[in-house]
């Protein structure tokens, strides 16, 4: 049964391509697309009654078959996919119709979105390392092709950079899987757990896998591909990339956390996550391109999610992933409506101009992403905080204030009421609003309390924004080192590969130093 969750979107992707070449009318094509997006939903709902639902495909034993399943580990990831994908699909029907230009046709994009759906769901249900890796590759390659299909300037550059970083990290991930296979004799994670011996080689394998996953998730020292790729893609694609694609590597980290031991990596992961939080906020606050602003905010939010992993908190990580999926996909789609009506991506030139409904939506989503308590973000933040030590809590709160400052800036810059202008309500505006409501509703279900601390955090964020605004710090521009041509791109890839290798070496030296009997530091 669970296998149908993956099989149906892939089948509909194939059917879509087949019917497209028979020259069927576009309305029917859209019907097939929507049917494909909705098809795994009944299977998921049927399985909801008896969770956890774990099966080995084909009735084989674990040793010979592929194990897949739904349980507490991937429940929130799947739930986020099943909410975000249909919403984005509805939005994209409107969006691609309006923005049909030269370049890749919209029906190819629908096909790729279906394939992305299959890839994401496949990696989320798998409990076999190699199966996970293959579906992760399907997800990444489809995402890369979707980025390159955008008409925005620089989309091809962004796509190429994403491709190279993805390939290097994939190679290292498969390399790590190879070591794990040799040490334990299995690729099934349950059997790996049974045969696990945490020696030096195993630790190095898990470290390599983690650095590769950090790269794919776009977390700070290895985030290079993320801001460009997420900001140059079409708006629905950006929502999918920021909302779900970067969460799939996080699920890989959870697999390692659940089935092997990552205790030895806690300190470097915590440092990396804090760096990612602060770096993302620092870069976002100076961005003028609103999509790049949201993309850098994703870098910072991925840091928050990594805090959940570094405190070995599976539940909080799942919740944070869910809340960020809702908020970021909603923000990308909400801002996308403004971008397509203004034809511009600059924060200083975009305004709500009479769209009150959209403004309320953006404020709700901003509160959700900032972790204010009736929203799910508040509960997720609270559950991560439980496992933190005394001083790290303050570091975490500074990150929260930073996030709220970012979105105070966004809302302040966008708010400029011009009531003379009458803009007709667009149906598309409902989509981000529903995502905001889901975030609020699930939050109230889990944690129906109101925390006074959040009011103080919002107050501090507003003060921080006012200080930044009136000291003219926000006018600063981040300088660009590389030229906008092929040599510049090649130079960037040289630099990024070097950083990737250096981070790998540092992580391995750390592990060997403290656990492998090598005493360097």
């Amino acid at each position, binding site marked *: 049964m669970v296998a149908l969750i993956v099989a149906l979107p892939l089948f509909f992707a194939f059917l879509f391509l087949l019917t497209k070449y028979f020259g069927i009318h576009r309305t029917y094509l859209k019907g097939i697309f929507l049917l494909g997006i909705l098809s795994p939903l009944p299977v998921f709902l049927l399985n909801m009654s008896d969770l956890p639902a774990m099966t080995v495909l084909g009735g084989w034993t674990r040793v010979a078959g592929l194990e897949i399943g739904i349980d507490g580990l991937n429940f929130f990831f799947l739930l986020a996919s099943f909410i975000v994908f249909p919403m984005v699909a509805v939005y994209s029907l409107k969006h691609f119709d309006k923005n049909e230009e030269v370049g890749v046709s919209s029906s190819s994009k629908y096909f790729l979105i279906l394939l992305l759906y299959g890839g994401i769901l496949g990696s989320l249900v798998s409990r076999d390392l190699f199966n996970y890796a293959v579906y992760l*590759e399907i997800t990444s390659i489809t995402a890369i092709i979707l980025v390159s299909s955008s008409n925005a*300037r*620089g989309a*091809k550059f962004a796509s*190429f950079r994403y*491709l*190279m970083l993805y390939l290097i990290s994939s190679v290292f991930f498969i390399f790590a899987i*190879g070591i794990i296979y040799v040490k334990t004799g299995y690729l099934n994670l349950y059997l790996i757990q049974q045969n696990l011996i945490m020696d030096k080689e195993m630790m190095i394998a898990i470290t390599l896998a983690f650095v590769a996953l950090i790269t794919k998730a776009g977390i700070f020292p290895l985030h290079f591909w993320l801001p460009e790729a997420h900001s140059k893609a079409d708006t629905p694609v950006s929502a999918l990339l920021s909302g779900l694609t970067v969460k799939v590597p996080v699920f890989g980290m959870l697999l390692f956390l659940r089935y092997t031991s990552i205790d030895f990596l806690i300190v470097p992961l915590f440092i990396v996550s804090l760096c990612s939080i602060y770096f993302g906020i620092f870069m976002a606050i100076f961005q003028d391109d609103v999509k790049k602003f949201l993309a850098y905010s994703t870098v910072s939010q991925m840091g928050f999610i990594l805090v959940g992993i570094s405190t070995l908190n599976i539940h909080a990580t799942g919740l944070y992933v869910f809340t960020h999926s809702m908020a970021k996909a909603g923000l990308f789609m909400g801002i996308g409506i403004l971008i397509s009506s203004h034809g511009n991506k600059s924060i200083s030139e975009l305004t709500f101009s009479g769209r009150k409904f959209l403004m309320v939506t953006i404020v709700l989503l901003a509160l959700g992403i900032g972790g204010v308590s009736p929203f799910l973000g508040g509960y997720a933040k609270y559950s991560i905080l439980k496992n933190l030590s005394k001083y790290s809590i303050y570091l975490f709160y500074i990150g929260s204030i930073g996030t709220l400052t970012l979105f105070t800036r966004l809302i302040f810059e966008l708010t400029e009421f011009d009531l003379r202008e009458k803009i007709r309500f667009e149906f598309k505006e409902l989509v981000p609003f529903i995502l905001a409501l889901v975030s609020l509703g699930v939050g109230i279900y889990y944690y129906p309390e109101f925390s006074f601390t959040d009011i103080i955090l919002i107050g501090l964020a507003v003060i921080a924004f006012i200080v930044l605004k009136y000291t003219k710090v926000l006018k600063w521009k981040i300088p660009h080192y590389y030229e*906008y041509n092929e040599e510049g791109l*090649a130079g960037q890839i040289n630099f990024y590969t070097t950083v990737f290798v250096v981070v790998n070496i540092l992580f391995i030296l750390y592990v060997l130093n403290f656990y492998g009997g090598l005493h360097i530091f």
Partner: protein
Amino acid sequence: MIDSITGGYLTAPIAGIILIMVGLYGLMVKKDLIKQVICINIISPGVVLYFTGLGYVSEAGAPLLPFVNVVDPIPATLMLTTLVIDVAVTSFALALIIKIEEIEIGRDEKW
């Protein structure tokens, strides 16, 4: 013969790791997009060699019926997937380079 030169230390996994290192070096220093794609194509066979080498058992045969004294078939089977992905991704990367030259170059733009 190769064993007499290397003293038996150059097994397939080690050779694979050396190939990965060579490819990474190329990615770190080469200033040409096509050369970088070729470097990726050096790294991937390195992984394939590493992985298939892991399943090797000395003086064992191909994994066919009856399964007596055979090499481990799983690494080789898994690597088929990687090879297929590599072919597709390489062609995509080269197509992307053509598109970059056609579309992106010559625009007065900042990153």
